[in-house]
C-alpha cells in the first residue's frame, strides 16, 4: 500500500520560471511507500528488460497497476509479457497492464542519469532520479535559484537540453519508519539482501560513480566482491532495488594480522547506485527522538534529515557520538575506547583500531552511520557490531573506511 504525498514544483530545464506547484501523489521522486515485509518476490530489473527490449522506457506502479513505457508501439506486447509475472504476483492480470508511448528508451535515460551525477556536487542539488513515472531524468533542487548552475553543468556534461527536468523537491512525509521504503534514499535506512537485513550507512560520490556505503559483512561474503544486490527496504517491494556491491577489499593474513585471523581496518563496503534510484547526498534519516539505548524509528515528518556537513576527526574517549540504525534507531553515547584491535565473535575476522561507544545497538543496525552533532552533523564512522547486552556499539572510523574504499565525497 502506498501512503505517500509529495509537494513538487516542476521546473523545465531552460525555462525561465517555475511552471507550477502540484500535489502529485503519483510522482515517484521523494515519494515513500510502505510494504508488508515479505522476502519472496522481486520486481523485474529494468536494466535487464532494457537489454532485451530496446524500446523499453521503464516501468512503474500507477496506483498499484504496472505501467510500462515504450518508444515504439510495436514493442508493447513484448514489454507487457516481460511484466506479466510481476503483475500477476500483485494480483493484476496481463490485460490490465498499461502501456504508455514515451520519447526515451531506458538505455538513454540511464546514460543521461549516469552522466548527470556530478551535479550532486553543486550547492542545493539534493537528488538525481531516473524518473520511471515520467520517462525522464529529474534533478531535485532546494530552490529555483539553482536552475541556471544545474543547466550549465548539464550542458557541459553533454546531456541534450529538454531531456532533463529540474524540480524543487519539498517532500511532505507522513509517518515513515527507518524500516519502510523511503525515497530519496539516505543514511540510516534499512537495506536488505538475500535473507539479511542491515542499515545503509551514507551516500557518497566516488570516482567510479554515485555510491552507498554499508558494512563488508552486509554483502554476500565478507571480503571480496560478489556483486551483492541491495534493496531498500525489502527485495519483495516494487522498485526497491538500489544498487550492487562493487568494492569490498579482501581481508589480509600474515604480517601484523594474528595467526588464524583475517584482518582489515574497517568493516565497510561500497555499492554503486542503479540508474534511476533517487538518493540524497549528505543526508541521514532523522527520527523523532534519540536515546542512549534505544531511540525512535519514526522519521521526523517536519524535519526528516540530519545534514552531513563533512567528515569529522576521529572521536576521542569521552566524546559524544550518535548513530541511526533500523533496529535501535537514533542512539547517542560517549566514546569509551579508541583504537581497539577487535576480534569478531563467530568468525576469523579481526579489525584494527576500532572505536567503542556506550550506546544502544541491536541486530540490524549493522552499517549505521556514526556522527557527531544533532542537526548539522560530522560523519565519523560506520557501525558494525556491539556487545551481547546491546549497550555498547563498535564502529570503524571514517578515515579507515576511506583508506580501504578510496576517497569519498559525503556532502
Amino acid at each position, binding site marked *: 500500500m502506498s501512503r505517500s504525498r509529495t509537494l513538487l514544483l516542476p521546473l523545465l530545464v531552460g525555462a525561465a520560471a517555475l511552471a507550477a506547484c502540484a500535489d502529485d501523489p503519483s510522482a515517484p521522486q521523494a515519494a515513500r511507500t510502505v510494504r508488508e*515485509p515479505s522476502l519472496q518476490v522481486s520486481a523485474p530489473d529494468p536494466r535487464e528488460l532494457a537489454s532485451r527490449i530496446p524500446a523499453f522506457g521503464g516501468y512503474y506502479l500507477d496506483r498499484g497497476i504496472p505501467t510500462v513505457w515504450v518508444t515504439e508501439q510495436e514493442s508493447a506486447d513484448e514489454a507487457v509479457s516481460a511484466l506479466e509475472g510481476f503483475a500477476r504476483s500483485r494480483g493484476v492480470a496481463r490485460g490490465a497492464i498499461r502501456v504508455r508511448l514515451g520519447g526515451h528508451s531506458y538505455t538513454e535515460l540511464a546514460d543521461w542519469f549516469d552522466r548527470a551525477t556530478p551535479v550532486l556536487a553543486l550547492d542545493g542539488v539534493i537528488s538525481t532520479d531516473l524518473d520511471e513515472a515520467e520517462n525522464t531524468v529529474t534533478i531535485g533542487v532546494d530552490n529555483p535559484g539553482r536552475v541556471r548552475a544545474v543547466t550549465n553543468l548539464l550542458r557541459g556534461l553533454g546531456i541534450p537540453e529538454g531531456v532533463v527536468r529540474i524540480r524543487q523537491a519539498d517532500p511532505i512525509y507522513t509517518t515513515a519508519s527507518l524500516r519502510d521504503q523511503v525515497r530519496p534514499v539516505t543514511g540510516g535506512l534499512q537495506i536488505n539482501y538475500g535473507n539479511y537485513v542491515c542499515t545503509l550507512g551514507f551516500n557518497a560520490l566516488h570516482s567510479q560513480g554515485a555510491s552507498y556505503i554499508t558494512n563488508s559483512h552486509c554483502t554476500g561474503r565478507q571480503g571480496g566482491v560478489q556483486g551483492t544486490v541491495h534493496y531498500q527496504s525489502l527485495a519483495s517491494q516494487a522498485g526497491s532495488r538500489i544498487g550492487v556491491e562493487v568494492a569490498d577489499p579482501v581481508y589480509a593474513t600474515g604480517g601484523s594480522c594474528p595467526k588464524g585471523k583475517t584482518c582489515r581496518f574497517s568493516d565497510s563496503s561500497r555499492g554503486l547506485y542503479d540508474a534511476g534510484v533517487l538518493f540524497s547526498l549528505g543526508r541521514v534519516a532523522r527520527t523523532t527522538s534519540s536515546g542512549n539505548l534505544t531511540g525512535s524509528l519514526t522519521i521526523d515528518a517536519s524535519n526528516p534529515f540530519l545534514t552531513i556537513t563533512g567528515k569529522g576527526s576521529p572521536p576521542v574517549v569521552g566524546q559524544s557520538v550518535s548513530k541511526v540504525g533500523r533496529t535501535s534507531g537514533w542512539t547517542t553515547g560517549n566514546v569509551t575506547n579508541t583504537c581497539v584491535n577487535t576480534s*569478531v565473535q*563467530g568468525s576469523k575476522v579481526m579489525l584494527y583500531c576500532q572505536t567503542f561507544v556506550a550506546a544502544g545497538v541491536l*541486530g*540490524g543496525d549493522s552499517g549505521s552511520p556514526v556522527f557527531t552533532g544533532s542537526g548539522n552533523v560530522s560523519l565519523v564512522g560506520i557501525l558494525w557490531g556491539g556487545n*551481547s547486552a546491546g549497550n555498547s556499539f563498535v564502529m570503524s572510523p571514517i578515515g579507515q573506511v576511506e583508506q580501504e574504499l578510496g576517497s569519498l565525497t559525503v556532502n
Partner: protein
Amino acid sequence: MDFRPLLLVLLAACSAPAPPSAQADAVDSAAAPDTGLAFRAQVPAQARAGEPVPIKLRLTNTGAAPREVYLTGRTVTFDVVVERAGGEVVWRRLEGETVQSILQVRTLAPGESLEFDASWDQRTNAGEPVPPGDYVVRGILPTDDARLRTPDAPLRIVPG
C-alpha cells in the same frame, strides 16, 4: 506476519519458573505452547564436577503457519547464562565478545526447529572452576525486537 506481539507473550511466559521435569537425565524447558514459538534449553539434570556440560537450545515453530524470525548475526548469535541457585551469574557465553549487528531472516515451517549447541566447561568467565552445587542454565536469543529467553533449566553439579 508480524510476530512481535506473540514474542511478547512468549517472553512473559518465559519469566515463569520452569516446571519440574519428569525426565531422568535432562530438563527440557518449554515455553507456553499457544504462542506459536517455543524456545527451550536442554541440559543434563546432573553432571560430575569438571565434566563439560552440553547445552542445546531449540527454537520451534509450534504454530500452524510458517513464521519469519529475525535473528542476529551471519552465524546466529545466541547466549547462554549459568547462575548459581541464588542468582549470581557465574558464566556467560558471550561475555566480552563483539558480535556483528546484522539481522538474519529465517522462515520456520510448522514444526520446524532451529538448534544451537554450546558447552560449558564448569568454569567462570574468569577461568575459575565452580564448586559442586545447584545451578540454573538459561538460553538467550537476540532478535530485532526482543530477546527470547528460555525458562531456567536446573543443573546439579556433583563431586567427581
